[in-house]
C-alpha cells in the first residue's frame, strides 16, 4: 500500500490532540506503522493547529507534505488547511461547502443524538474510521480502555457517538474513499522523543533531574515526574535555567547521574554552567530541544538552528560531546550513550533534539534493550592512598570519587586548580598542565564518536548530508530522486562534536539539508574536514523538512 496521510485541524481546545492521539492508537493497534506529528500555535485556546498521522505498512518515520484525508473541526481550519489536500484526497468538515467534501455536522450529532457536544470528537473519530475503511470494533475497544475509569455510561455514550459518525460517513465514503486498513499481524511501539529520552535516562541510572519549563523540552521532566514511583528519579522545577544546571552539577558532584533539558533561550542561560561542568570535570547530560529563534522565536515550532551554538557553548576551552539523534529509538540509545560517555570522560554532553523529534510519535519495531548497557565509571576509593580529584592520569581522566564515599576529600573548583582541587596561580606548571589535561580527553573521546551513516554512495553523483531528526525525510527524498532517474546518496550525522575521523568519498556534489537558514552543518564540515559543499537545502519557516520539500528545493 501507499502511505496515507491524515491531517486533523482545528482550534486549540477543540480536540485536535484527542482525536489524533486516539486515531494513532487505533491504527497502530490495527497493525500499521504510524508516524504522527503536530504543529500548533503558542496559545492554549483558539488559533488553528494540525495533527498529522502518516499510516503505512513499514515505519517511515518522517512527516509528509500534503493530506490524503483532511478533517477540519471549524471553518477557519478549512480555509487554512485546504491547500494541503492532494489530488484524490478527501476533506471532511462540519458543513458542506463544495462537492468533494464529506460533510458531517459533528457537533449537532453529538448534541442532538448523544446529548452533549463534548462527544463531537468521538463522532469525528467514527467518521475517520469509515473514511479509512476500517471496522468500527477496533475504535470501540480503544474507547473502552481509554474511558474505563469514567464508568460504563461514558464508555457507552462514546461508543454510540463513534457509531453515529461511522454510519453517517459510511454511505458518503463508498465511492470516494479508496482506502482500506484490514487488520495486520504487526506491532509497533508508538513513542515520541520526549518519552524515549527520559525512559533511557532512568534506564541509565539517572536519579536527578532539574529543569525550568520551556517548550518543547518540558515533556521530559513531566514524564520522569509522572513515573517517579517506578523510576525513582528526583525531579525539581527550578526557579530558572541557571539554577537547574547548577543543581544538576551539584547532584552529579555528589555522585548521582543527573540531567536537565531546555530550549534555546534557557540553554543560553545554562551556558556558564556548561563551562563549570567542563572546568570541574563534572559529568552532566543536557537535552537542548531546538525551536526557531532568535530570542523567543516561534516557541512551538521546529528548527535546527542551534548546532553551532551547542558545539561552541561555554567560555574557555574544555571537551564536550554533542549528539543529535535521528528518531525516538536513536534518542533512546543516544541518551544511554550520553550518560555513559559523560561519566567516562567527566564532561558535559548535549543531546540536540528539536520540536519534531520531541513531540512526534515514531513507530518502532523493537527497542533492543538487550543491546543497551548503562556503564558507570566512579572510582573505587579503597585502592587509593592519597587522593586528589585532579591527579594526573592516563588520557586526562582522573579518578572520580564522590564526597562522603570514603575518608578521601573531594575538592573541586571553578577557578583554575591544582591536583587536589585548590585554587592556583601557578601558571607555568599547574595552570598550563591542567588545561592540557582537560583537553587531552578529546583524544579518547574522538575515537568513540560514531562515523556518519552512509546510504547509496557508490552510484550517487550527488550526496545530501544531514544531521539529527531529518534522517527519515532525507532518506525518503533519495527515493523520490530515484523515481526521477537521479542517483542521490545520503550521509547522515548523529554525533556532531567532536567530529569523527571520516573521509568523504571524492568526486561527489555535496549538499547539506538543514532546518536553518545559514547552513550550520555546512560551516562545520567545511572548517573541520575542508569539505567542498555546493550549498544547503534550507528550511526555516518553523515546519519540519519533508521529502517533498527537499525534492522541490533541490530541483529549484
Amino acid at each position: 500500500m501507499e502511505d496515507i496521510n491524515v491531517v486533523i485541524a482545528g482550534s486549540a481546545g477543540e480536540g485536535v490532540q484527542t482525536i489524533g492521539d486516539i486515531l494513532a492508537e487505533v491504527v497502530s493497534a490495527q497493525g500499521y506503522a504510524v508516524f504522527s506529528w503536530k504543529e500548533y500555535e503558542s496559545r492554549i485556546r483558539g488559533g488553528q493547529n494540525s495533527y498529522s498521522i502518516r499510516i503505512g505498512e513499514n515505519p517511515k518515520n518522517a512527516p509528509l507534505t500534503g493530506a490524503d484525508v483532511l478533517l477540519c473541526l471549524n471553518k477557519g481550519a478549512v480555509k487554512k488547511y485546504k491547500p494541503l489536500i492532494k489530488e484524490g484526497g478527501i476533506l471532511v468538515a462540519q458543513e458542506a461547502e463544495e462537492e468533494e467534501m464529506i460533510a458531517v455536522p459533528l457537533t449537532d450529532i453529538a448534541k442532538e443524538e448523544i446529548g452533549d457536544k463534548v462527544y463531537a470528537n468521538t463522532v469525528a473519530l467514527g467518521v475517520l474510521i469509515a473514511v479509512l475503511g476500517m471496522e468500527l470494533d477496533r475504535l470501540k475497544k480503544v474507547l473502552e480502555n481509554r474511558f474505563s475509569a469514567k464508568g460504563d455510561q461514558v464508555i457507552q455514550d462514546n461508543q454510540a457517538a463513534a457509531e453515529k459518525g461511522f454510519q453517517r460517513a459510511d454511505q458518503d465514503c463508498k465511492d470516494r474513499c479508496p482506502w482500506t486498513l484490514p487488520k495486520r499481524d504487526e506491532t509497533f511501539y508508538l513513542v515520541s522523543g520526549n518519552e524515549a529520552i527520559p525512559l533511557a535516562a532512568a534506564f541509565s541510572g539517572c536519579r536527578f533531574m532539574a529543569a525550568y519549563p520551556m517548550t518543547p523540552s518540558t515533556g521530559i521532566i513531566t514524564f520522569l515526574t509522572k513515573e517517579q514511583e517506578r523510576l525513582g528519579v528526583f525531579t525539581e522545577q527550578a526557579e530558572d535555567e541557571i539554577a537547574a544546571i547548577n543543581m544538576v552539577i551539584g547532584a552529579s558532584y555528589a555522585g548521582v547521574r543527573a540531567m536537565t533539558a531546555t530550549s534555546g533561550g534557557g540553554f543560553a542561560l545554562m551556558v556558564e554552567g556548561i563551562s563549570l561542568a567542563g572546568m570541574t570535570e563534572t559529568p552532566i547530560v543536557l537535552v537542548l530541544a531546538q525551536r526557531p529563534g532568535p530570542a523567543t522565536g516561534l516557541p512551538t515550532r521546529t528548527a535546527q538552528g542551534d548546532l553551532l551554538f551547542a558545539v561552541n557553548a561555554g567560555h574557555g576551552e574544555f571537551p564536550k560531546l554533542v549528539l543529535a539523534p535521528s528518531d525516538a529509538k536513536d534518542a533512546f540509545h543516544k541518551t544511554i550513550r550520553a550518560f555513559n560517555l559523560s561519566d567516562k570522560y567527566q564532561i558535559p554532553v548535549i543531546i540536540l533534539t528539536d520540536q519534531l523529534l520531541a513531540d512526534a510519535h515514531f513507530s518502532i519495531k523493537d527497542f533492543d534493550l538487550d543491546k543497551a548497557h548503562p556503564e558507570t565509571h566512579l572510582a573505587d576509593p579503597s585502592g587509593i592512598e592519597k587522593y586528589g580529584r585532579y591527579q594526573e592520569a592516563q588520557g586526562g581522566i582522573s579518578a572520580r570519587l564522590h564526597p562522603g564515599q570514603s575518608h578521601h576529600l573531594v575538592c573541586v573548583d571553578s577557578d583554575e586548580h591544582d591536583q587536589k582541587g585548590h585554587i592556583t596561580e601557578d601558571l607555568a606548571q599547574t595552570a598550563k598542565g591542567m588545561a592540557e589535561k582537560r583537553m587531552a580527553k578529546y583524544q579518547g573521546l574522538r575515537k568513540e564518536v560514531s562515523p556518519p551513516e552512509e546510504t547509496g554512495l557508490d552510484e550517487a553523483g550527488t550526496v545530501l548530508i544531514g544531521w539529527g531528526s531529518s534522517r527519515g525525510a532525507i532518506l525518503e527524498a533519495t527515493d523520490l530522486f530515484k523515481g526521477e532517474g537521479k542517483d542521490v546518496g545520503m550521509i547522515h550525522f548523529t554525533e556532531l562534536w567532536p567530529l569523527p575521523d571520516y573521509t568523504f568519498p571524492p568526486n561527489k556534489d555535496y549538499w547539506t539539508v538543514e532546518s536553518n537558514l545559514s547552513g550550520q552543518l555546512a560551516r562545520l564540515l567545511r572548517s573541520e574536514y575542508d569539505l567542498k559543499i555546493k550549498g544547503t537545502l534550507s528550511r526555516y519557516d518553523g515546519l519540519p523538512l519533508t521529502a517533498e520539500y527537499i525534492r522541490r528545493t533541490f530541483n529549484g
Partner: protein
Amino acid sequence: MAEVKDYQSDAEIQWCPGCPNFGILQAFKKAFVELQSPPHELCLISGIGQAAKLPHYLKCNLFNGLHGRAIPVALGVHVANPTLTTIVVTGDGDCYGEGGNHFIHALRRNPDITVVVHNNEIYALTKGQASPTTPYGEKRTLQVHGVDITPLNMPAIAILHGCGFVARGFAGEGDHLKNILVRAVKHRGLSYVDVIQPCITWGTHPVSWYKERVYKLADDYDETDQRGALDTALITGEKIPIGILYEGPSQTIFGRRFREEVTEEALTTLGSPDTENIRQILSKFRPAKD
C-alpha cells in the same frame, strides 16, 4: 576526638592580612570541633568572592562553583546525599546580588542546609564597588557620588518568609559566632546566618566602628517570636543586634515527599532501576492487540 588542627588545610590563604574573615574561619573550625563532624562528612559549597575561598582553608569536601550559584549546587548535593552536612559559604554580593533569586527560592524550599553569608557591604574582590547591602549614601569605587538605592535587609526578608533559623553574627565575636554556627548546623531545615564582616581594605568603617555598635541579644530574648524577630532584624545603623534572631518550627523540608513516598535511601546508593520496570513502562507504548 577531633581538634581544631584536624580542620587545618594546607592551601595558601589569599585574604588580606588581618581580614575579619580569619575570625569566621576560626569560628567554623571550633564549631566543627564542637559538632565532632568528620571532615569527609562535611560538604562546603561556595560561589565567587573572598568568602567563597573559605572552604579551601578548611579540611572538608568542597565545591567552589560560579558566582551566585552556590545554593543550587548545594541543593543538588543535599538531595543526592542527605547524610552529608551541606553548608553554603557565600558573601553579600554572591548571595544577595548575583544569586538573589536562588536565596529567595531556598526560603520557599526549606532544604536542610546551612547558608552562611559573609556580609562586608562591599564587592571586595573586584575592588570596592557597592553591594546589595551597602548603606544608602556611602561612596564606593563605582558609586562615586554615593549609593542612591536602598540596601537589602535579607534577615528581615528571611523571617518574613518563614525561614526556620535566622541569625546575625559578627566576625569580631568568634565564640559567639561559633555557637550560632553549631546551632545552625543542628537545625533541621534551612539555617541562615548573616555575618557582619568589615572589609579592612575597601570598607567605610574600621572594625572598631562595628564593635561599638553590635550588641548581643539579651538572655531573655524570645527566639521563637517571629514578629519580635522581624522587629529586631529591622534594627540597623547605630545599633546592630547579633545572635539568633529567630528559630521556629520548620515547615516541610525540601524533598520530604520523595523520601517518604519513593525512597528513603540516599540517591547515591541506588544505581540503575530494574530493566523489568523499563520494559513495563515501554509496553504501555505498544497499543494493545486483541
